[in-house]
């Protein structure tokens, strides 16, 4: 897992137009490792980093969808700290150029929201955020709210990818999109995954069918600046592999497409380079990158984050396990470690032995007067709410309304 993660990521990224060197880097990393069969070329390592900086983080934006819009303010911590610290009591204003502005209200510590029915982004207008906190003022650049073309198609292809511990099986999601006016050029995507899954051991008092939810966290951007046409074909979104429960029953992906400005694109590009660095010395030297927000009172102090403005377009697609009936995916199930025993008899001392060994009571069934007790080695194996929700997510369309 240690090295495979990094290498898989490396192998997947492949040479692309944006990062012309990536192929070289992958080779540099893998080649000597394999040639000399070293046990581990890449290992997890946590150096002692004593210094840290407390800087204001701004995470928020405006879209053309009706609000409320959320802006989160917090203070950064060192990379070995667990949480960041919310910033309360700031005055946060979203402003439209030559138009209205709205002061956001703090709904949770550090979380500020516009009012329902308040300011709404309009395509072609420019917006900015200004923040006042502890007598320091912050201000973003004016951000143009660009129109966004719809996703032409969202689709997947069965692909095998390369991990260091062998090939992995799964599906790769792609999108096609284009702007007939050639205006969009810079794109960013997010996705939200939801999937149904079940646990291997049944338990009469626990749900066995649950729904997991995962919003994307990686940086997925694309541009057509190098192309004549504003057209992207087969742009990769994410790879879903056989090591999770995602494809075991029913899976849904919602892809959100943002049209962004060139400046924002450059920011994401630099952020991606810094955060998804592969460790070779060919990588650019890590350097400070600047978002669109400045500390007006104290221009020397950096501000992290970005005030984004974009139109969003989404597309949704479901995948069911049945679709792989002809070419089954062999899951490397996360439940592989699950174990259970069924013990017959009311006061069978084996039950307490298993209890003492840390096993848990998963189920009891009385059949023909005999009590059958199911003991399992982990709650995770019989209670699906440990990994998901018993209720389906909003707008979930069950495969078979009768069943799910």
């Amino acid at each position, binding site marked *: 897992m240690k090295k495979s993660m990094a290498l898989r990521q490396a192998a997947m990224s492949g040479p692309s137009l944006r990062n*012309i060197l990536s192929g070289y880097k992958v080779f540099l990393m893998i*080649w000597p490792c394999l040639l000399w069969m070293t046990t581990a*070329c890449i290992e997890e390592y946590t150096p002692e980093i004593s210094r*840290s*900086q407390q800087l204001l983080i701004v995470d928020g934006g405006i879209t053309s969808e009706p609000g409320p819009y959320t802006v989160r303010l917090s203070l950064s911590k060192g*990379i070995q700290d667990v949480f960041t610290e919310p910033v309360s009591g700031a005055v946060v204003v979203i402003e439209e150029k030559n138009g209205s502005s709205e002061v956001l209200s703090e709904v949770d510590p550090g979380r500020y929201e516009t009012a329902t029915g308040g300011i709404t982004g309009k395509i072609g207008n420019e917006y900015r955020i200004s923040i006042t906190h502890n007598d320091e003022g912050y201000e973003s650049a004016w951000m143009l709210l660009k129109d966004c073309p719809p996703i032409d198609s969202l689709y997947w292809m069965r692909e095998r990818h390369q991990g260091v511990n062998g090939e992995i099986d799964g599906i790769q999601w792609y999108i096609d999109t284009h702007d007939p006016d050639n205006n969009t050029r810079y794109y960013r995507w997010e996705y939200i995954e939801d999937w149904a899954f079940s646990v291997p051991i049944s338990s009469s008092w626990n749900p066995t069918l649950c729904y997991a939810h995962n919003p994307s*966290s990686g940086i997925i951007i694309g541009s057509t600046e190098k*192309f004549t046409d504003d057209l992207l074909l087969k742009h990769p979104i994410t790879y879903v592999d056989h090591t999770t429960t995602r494809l075991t029953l029913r899976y849904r992906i919602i892809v959100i497409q943002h049209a962004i400005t060139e400046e924002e694109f450059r920011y994401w590009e630099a952020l991606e380079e810094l955060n998804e660095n592969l460790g070779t010395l060919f990588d*650019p030297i890590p*350097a400070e990158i600047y978002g669109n927000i400045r500390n007006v009172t104290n221009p020397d102090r950096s501000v992290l984050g970005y005030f984004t403005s974009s139109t969003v377009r989404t597309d949704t697609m479901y995948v069911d396990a049945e679709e792989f009936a002809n070419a089954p995916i062999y899951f490397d199930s996360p439940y592989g470690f699950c174990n259970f025993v069924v013990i017959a008899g009311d006061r069978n001392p084996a039950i307490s032995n298993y209890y003492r060994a840390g096993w848990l009571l998963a189920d009891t069934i009385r059949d023909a007067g005999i009590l059958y007790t199911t003991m399992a080695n982990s709650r995770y194996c019989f209670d699906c709410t440990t990994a998901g929700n018993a209720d389906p997510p909003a707008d979930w369309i069950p495969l078979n309304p009768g069943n799910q």
Partner: protein
Amino acid sequence: MKWLVFSVIMNRCRVINRSFILSVLLILSTGRGYTQAGDMIIDQSFHGEMFADLVSHLEGKTDLRFFYDPSWIDTLRLVQAGGSFTLEDLLDASFKERDIKYIITPQGDVILSKGNPIHGSVAKDFFMIPDQGAMASLPDPPEILPLPGQNNGIQHHPDNGLVELGDPAMKNKPGRVDLSGFIKEFENGAPMVGAIVYVEELGLGAATDMNGYYLISLPRGAHKISFQSLGKEKIALSMQIYSSSEYNVDLKDKLTELKAVEIVADKYQNVSGIQTGIERMEISRVKSLPGMMGETDIVKVALLLPGVQTVGEASSGFHVRGGTSDQNLVLFNHAPVFNSSHLFGFFSSFNPDVIKNFELFKSGMPARYGGRVSSVLDIATKQGNMKKTSVSAGISPITGRILVEGPIIKDKLSYLIGGRATYSDWILNRINIPAIRNSNAGFYDLTGKLSCKINNKNFIDVSAYYSRDNFQLNSDTTYRYNNESMTASWKHYFSEKFISEFRAVYSGYNYSISSQQQNMSDFSLDYGIKHHELKSEFSYFLNHRHILRFGANGIFYLMNPNEFRPVGEASDIIPLVLEKEQAFESGIYLSDEYDIGPRLKLYGGIRYSFYQFVGPKTVYRYGPGTPLDPSNINDTINYPSGKIIQSYHHPEFRLSVRYKFNPYNSIKFSYNSNAQYLHMLSNSAIISPTDRWKLSDPHISPQIGDQLSLGYYRDLPYNIETSVETYYKRIKNLLEYKGGAKLINNEHIETDIINGMGKAYGIELIVRKNRGRLTGWLSYTYSRSFIKVDTDFDFEDINNGAYYPSHFDKPHDVSAVFNMVISRRLNFSSNLVYNTGRPITYPIAKFPFKNGIRLHYSERNAYRIPDYFRWDLSLNLEGNLRSRKIAHSSWTFALYNATGRDNVYSIFFISKGKEIQGYKMSIFAVPVFTVTYNIRF
């Protein structure tokens, strides 16, 4: 007959140990009969027996003792016609074919000599075996050997007799005379570069130039003069010089050469040479050291020298005294090499077989070099063998090599062709990962040279070099780059005092990256730079105190900065072809090497360099007082062809002073300033395959470097040299990059560049032993290197405008390099390297942003990776040493990183969604064993 033996001949001698044959000095004075033992009747048949059997037979039965080097006789069988013979008859018959001379002393010592006859005759009444150390104890020659006048190109000199040169009529004139001539290799007629002509009693020396030419000015009269070079028999002569004369010398290989390799910078150079910060090494030394993956690599060996560093193991580029890697002028056959690495920097792009030696100037560069700020690495290739054709080849786990050389016209015109290629595809195809199996990586390089000696006054050589790399990952994106160069040189001797060299040089570097997946993003990206140069250099030996050198050069650069194009029908790429750039760089220089007295020597030089960036070109102008940013462009100017857009010029001073307290102690000082008009654009820690060179233009100013260096040099007994050098260096206009800088497909590259200021200082201590069975060096360097980026606009500053350590700031650096000759066939080497870990930038904050945790980097190079340590070993095994064999072969067994230390190459962080994970990466975490086989015909 009386024998004087000055040094003991050890070990009554089946084997005359090499170091002892050298320290033997025999003087044979007037003779009585010397042949009593020779008259001994041999009544046993030895015909066809090995000579060694005769020796053991006679030494067992009689008082005779034999002295010889076993290599002379190891295949020698005795020749005896039959019946009874005297010992002399037997030896005469047996040695006839072998050019072995002998003498039998009254004490019953039978002394053999190969090549040099031993004069036992009354007429030639003394002989000596030349010696390195015993010169001082040499008594004055008892008698003058008559010799026919001037030897004007004639190659014979007496075997260690007295040589009379010049017109005896001028004998009593006052003043000085010049002795000049050529020193060549006896075996193949190649000029001996850097051979030393040395007059010990005057402490005077001169080194030969690239054609083997030397000139030394001496008081008229008698001198003991030695001609010496590494691995060669030294020739020591008593010379009576009446007037200025020429004297040519051929140096022979040391017969007992045990493959002990020596650093050529001769004994007298450490203390007496004027230069500070010079490293000079013969390829034989480089080859004797363990190489990475079995490859001999001069750049990797240079890294073992004090003051030379690299960012990471197996990385391209090197750093000299805190300079960046583009500040090194790498010359291969006088042509600059723009990318000196193969396969991502794992190897350097120079085939060791064609190299003769290299010189590295870390400070005190002579005025004839210009164009780079930090150092000059001047690599000289061999001249083809003028006497006979020979072929050598070698195979290592990575490459195969072949070298063919020989005369076209004997002693006049020779050729040399060397090639090297990797077969790493073969290895890649065996790796069971499709992405790698479908990849291929290859490189090769070719070197050729034609050398022509028209006459003693004119030499011409033409050399060419081509190296190419290609790499393809998983059959889609292909990376290719190549270096190409060609040099034509003409060296002309107007007189023995006035020498000129004219040179035409072309050098080019190109790379091309292309993607061909039959889709809309298929592209090709090309870059190229061409260097065309004409150069002249003149040396004028004004008198014995002054050597003037002057010359001029002019370079025309033509650069194709960026050519991005669609490939194929499907591609929808918009071409982005940036305008070609062109510039002239020229320089004139004058220097004087001034011998103020026996103790004080001065080198003063000035070089004036000029640079013009010329049209056609479109140049952006930015609003005054604003940062260079595309949004601040306020004007666009189109310059027509040939129009000077921007010019720069700079005086560069080169000064060196040496003060010698005595022959064993000296101090030296040097100052040099250099201007650099060509820059490497690279925002990664090491040179990456997409990095390119950039010409200075209206927005990018030339880099200016100044360096002061002071050193103390001392020679100790047992051929041990020591030195301590300190330096301080300052570099203006270093290039640094803004965060997220784009160096390719960028129409206004200046907007991503910021100017920095560099400073570096350090102290280098070295102890070396260049001769004997055990050679090597031990060095310790303490050095620092810093950069400061403090611009007019605070937000562009790095680390708030304070100095921060450069990527190659490694304060402590220790190298221990040893080579031990175990026997004549076996030779053992060891390298030990320790240095402080390089600086690294760690993220100092993390921040949640749009569902992910992102990293924030600041405080450039505030941390360091763990220290680096490596120990390499190698064993070189020669095939048997018979001289008559068709082919000579050798095996090299090398162990790289013998302790298997897991040296950290880099530390990096990956943000995996909600969490941040740090990783460390190492390249060679286990010992790597390699075997190399070499063969020579």
